[in-house]
């Protein structure tokens, strides 16, 4: 009896084990084409309606399924996509695009200029994060038109050299009106959308995996080797890492902090995060406009003292996330023809290596402003929106206390964005993550900021920069933008965080990484 039981148990274990063995050779090969499995984002980030998408991973998925007038090529450069050519008027205000002849939706219908116009309008109506992306740039009376099926004309309000970057960004992609309906259920399942990008969504097991298959009728299909993408919707870092390590996933953007050191050299990659991490000062003094910040913050020397007193190196060391110090508003990663990075081209806001000297200067500035050793200085209300940002804010507050004798209460606000927008703070977390790789996107974040700061000088420099396509001239104007921000200090930059991801570069080449978005279309096997 006992023997039989043991045998039965052994058989059961064996059966369970055999039936569960992972399928080997995840990356099937056939005629040069291959299949990959990746993870990048959970279900909630997968809004595939291009007029409503906002999460970075969802935007990445959209880059595979849809395509705009421009697209990212294999080297990550913005090049013409669905458009065959573009002509720009002499004043730079009218951009006329002629569509390619060989572009179709996944149901075989040709992509028309009207599909682009419908997409632009849907974006404006959707009232999501990027609703004003295009309408802010275009002529309000006559923003865009489709004179015929093959021509899209965009009329700008002022010359905008970065328009190609905007038109390569998923929210400006075309939408088929007959599938969109009222937009409520558009693209929520594979059959509720048609696709004009390299891939078609053939299956979506919600919360689990999306399957994208290369479209035979995509105009560039012959040059793409990734035939099928199994996009796992995983949010658990440990299981994603284990799946990456055992070769199931080619790419994963999930890695537990404590495993970062171990994964160094094992597929871990760092790239500039195209972002900044700042403290924002509430400069509003008009109750009509919203909540007012502490009056002491009106004095630019006080803001400078607060900026100088923060030990950025200590914060970066404690975070241990490979951050770059915040000495300019823009982050690194933008180089000119000579290979100079913009962060080296612009003047630094402060000397991070001279912290002791900075502290002495900060004390003096505060004393000159009438608050020697912090005497009489109000308690600052410092709001943040999550636990990790609270940790950083507490480090900042501790520096202010130790160096300047100033108190700040750090609070995690449940209605953070509303509180910041309405001015219910003295100091707040602020960070900008760029949408597309163009410095204009970084500086546009300070045009109508929650700091209640306005500067004609800054706006003029910004407008001058976006009106020219000459990089040298542009950089000069962006340098001016930096200088104005450094002078007025509506924000103080603490650091620039790096993005990290896991990628099997021992087996594959050609991953395109652009502003925290990733494209697998151009992967090739080594």
């Amino acid at each position: 009896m006992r023997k039989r039981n043991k045998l039965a148990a052994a058989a059961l274990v064996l059966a369970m084990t055999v039936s569960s063995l992972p399928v080997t050779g995840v990356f099937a090969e056939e005629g040069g084409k291959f299949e990959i499995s990746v993870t990048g984002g959970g279900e909630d980030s997968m809004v595939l309606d291009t007029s409503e998408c906002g999460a970075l991973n969802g935007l990445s998925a959209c880059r595979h399924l849809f395509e705009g007038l421009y697209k990212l090529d294999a080297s990550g450069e913005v090049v013409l996509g669905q458009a065959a050519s573009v002509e720009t008027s002499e004043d730079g205000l009218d951009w006329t695009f002629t569509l390619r002849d060989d572009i179709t939706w996944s149901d075989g219908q040709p992509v028309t200029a009207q599909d682009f116009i419908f997409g632009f309008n849907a974006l404006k109506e959707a009232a999501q994060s990027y609703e004003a992306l295009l309408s802010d740039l275009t002529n309000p009376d006559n923003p865009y038109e489709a004179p015929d099926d093959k021509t899209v004309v965009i009329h700008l309000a002022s010359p905008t050299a970065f328009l190609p970057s905007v038109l390569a960004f998923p929210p400006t992609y075309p939408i088929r009106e007959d599938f969109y309906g009222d937009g409520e259920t558009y693209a929520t399942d594979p059959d509720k959308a048609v696709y004009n990008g390299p891939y078609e969504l053939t299956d979506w097991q919600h919360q689990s995996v999306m399957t994208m298959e290369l479209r035979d009728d995509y105009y560039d299909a012959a040059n793409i080797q990734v035939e099928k993408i199994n996009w796992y919707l995983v949010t658990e870092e440990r299981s994603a890492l284990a799946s990456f390590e055992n070769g199931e996933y080619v790419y994963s953007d999930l890695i537990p902090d404590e495993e970062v050191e171990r994964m160094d050299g094992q597929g871990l990659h760092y790239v500039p995060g195209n972002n900044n991490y700042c403290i924002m000062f509430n400069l509003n003094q008009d109750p009509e406009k919203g909540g007012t910040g502490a009056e002491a913050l009106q004095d630019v020397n006080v803001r400078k003292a607060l900026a100088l007193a923060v030990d950025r190196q200590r914060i970066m060391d404690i975070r241990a996330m490979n951050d770059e110090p915040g000495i300019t508003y823009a982050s690194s990663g933008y180089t000119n023809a000579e290979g100079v990075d913009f962060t080296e081209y612009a003047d630094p806001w402060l000397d991070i290596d001279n912290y002791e000297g900075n502290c002495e200067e900060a004390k003096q500035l505060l004393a000159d402003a009438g608050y020697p050793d912090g005497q009489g200085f109000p308690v600052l209300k410092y709001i943040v929106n999550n636990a990790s940002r609270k940790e950083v804010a507490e480090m900042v507050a501790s520096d202010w206390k130790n160096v300047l004798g100033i108190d700040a209460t750090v609070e995690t606000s449940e209605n953070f964005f509303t509180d910041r927008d309405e001015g219910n703070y003295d100091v707040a977390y602020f960070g900008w993550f760029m949408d597309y790789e163009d410095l204009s996107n970084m500086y546009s974040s300070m045009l109508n900021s929650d700091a209640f700061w306005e500067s004609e000088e800054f706006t003029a420099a910004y407008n001058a920069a976006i009106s020219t396509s000459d990089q040298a001239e542009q950089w000069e104007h962006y340098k001016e933008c930096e200088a104005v921000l450094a002078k007025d200090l509506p924000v103080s930059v603490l650091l620039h965080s790096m993005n990290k991801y896991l990628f099997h570069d021992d087996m594959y080449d050609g991953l395109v990484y652009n502003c925290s978005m990733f494209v697998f279309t151009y992967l090739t096997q080594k």
Partner: protein
Amino acid sequence: MQLSRYIIKRILLAVVSIFAIVTITFFLMNLMPGDPFMSEKATEESRQKLIEKYGLDQPIYIQYEKYLKNLAKGDMGTSYVLQKGREVRTIIFESFSVSMKLGIRALILAVIAGITLGCIAGLTKDRLPDGLVRIFSSIGISMPSYVVAAILMIVLAVSWNILPLNYNKPGGWIMPMLTLATYPTCYLTRLTRASILEVMNQDYLRTERAKGMSEFVVVFIHALKNSLIPVITYLGPLTASILTGGFVAESVFSVPGLGRYFVSSISGRDYTMIMGITIFYSTLIVLMNLICDILYKIVDPRISFE
């Protein structure tokens, strides 16, 4: 009281309970700070537009009335955040199907293993098998499910590499099933053991032995049946909770089930999902408790419905 009358009475009571749960949840949910449309890049104007679009700017009692009217028609609305634009009832149906499939396996394992181990421990009181079972069940009860999941993952998926981590892969259900089943197995083991020990001292068993009945009949036909009442009590809520999945097991092993929505719908302020899941889960619990009460009567005819 007749069984049919009893069932009708219980169903009416259940409807009242569920209505109370819906009402309390609706108002508590609206007291939570924040809304589903908060985002770093969305302007305050676009947020307001969305609040108006979904009618969240209307007085709370009007929103409540509308929700009840739609609910009466079986319409739970669409998800705002987690699966934006998809119908809540579709999401619940799909994810519950997955959780239920996994849960039934875990439940069968827990019941069979739990009762068997409990019987073994009870019948071998203070001997080696009893000791081993008690150690196993104590450890299993004390370990939080994320620890169980992590141990399974490290041993079976990473070190030995014999099981896949992702639920979608062949055999991917085994580790989440084991994670889900560990606690109830151990709890049922302890419950059955205690119950068996109590029943084994009853006079009627001594009488049965005196009458010459075999030990097998005494233990497995008479003692076990009578010792199952506390087990059945526990099975009601256990079935409801195990069928709806577990946050940890589903998150760690990427199971597309209902379990993770319990937490994520609240943190995402996905109002329609919070309501839909609460209604579904409370209905399931009420239903399971009713079935258990009826099972009592079948197991022990002395129990009255009065």
